[in-house]
């Protein structure tokens, strides 16, 4: 009788630990995957905005003369809004000698 109770308790213990293990693993895996996804989106937006600032229009938004790139000086025809919604960042630029912002977003 004593053996039976010990056996049942051991089985319950193993089952509970297994369920707990799967739960903890799946929860942490989900969190890490979510973090990685966010990281990817944010990195892409940061890179895209920086690329735009430092590359000649129309690939980027920078004003260029010959081979000289004027980073942080936007071409007069440049559109300073890239994407809409999601994670957005602002980068300070000069357009027509006025300080304005290049806005880059993760959606769109």
């Amino acid at each position, binding site marked *: 009788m004593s053996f039976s109770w010990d056996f049942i308790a051991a089985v319950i213990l193993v089952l509970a630990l297994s369920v707990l293990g799967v739960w903890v693993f799946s929860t942490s895996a989900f969190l890490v995957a979510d973090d990685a996804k966010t*990281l990817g989106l*944010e990195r892409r937006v940061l890179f895209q905005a920086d690329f735009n600032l430092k590359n000649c229009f129309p690939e980027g938004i920078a004003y260029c003369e010959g081979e000289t790139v004027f980073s942080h000086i936007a071409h007069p025809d440049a559109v300073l809004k890239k994407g809409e919604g999601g994670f957005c960042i*602002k*980068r*300070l630029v000069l357009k027509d000698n006025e300080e304005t*912002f290049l806005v880059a977003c993760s959606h769109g």
Partner: protein
Amino acid sequence: MGRAFVSVEALLALLAAGLALTLAMPLLSSRPSQALETVYEFQLAQDFAEVGVSNPEALSAIKLFAEGNAEAKAFLEEKFSAILSKAGDYCLELSAKEKVLSLNCRGGKMQGVYVSRAVFDDGRNAFFDFGVKLGFYS
């Protein structure tokens, strides 16, 4: 029978430990946003410095501000306050030679980044540093 009850207590303790571990997982997981936040803060500080020296009007004001000109200081204060109001809730500290202009700095706990640009002082035929310190309220 008695030993079985001890096992149930152990089971409860393990369940509690598992729950605590699960609740702690968000703290243990990586914090990518924070890592990129520092990169963004640094980029934004660089933007302020670059735009400051790229705009001829602002550059003249920076040179005069470095010499202690009050009008230039007021001009920079107005210009950079307007930019700051659109950028976000940051503390901006502009420095040229020994002169410092603080905008939207409330004190308290704050982390920030510092960048600088070399500006040529025509009058003294020498360079000086135009510093930009951007502080972030956490």
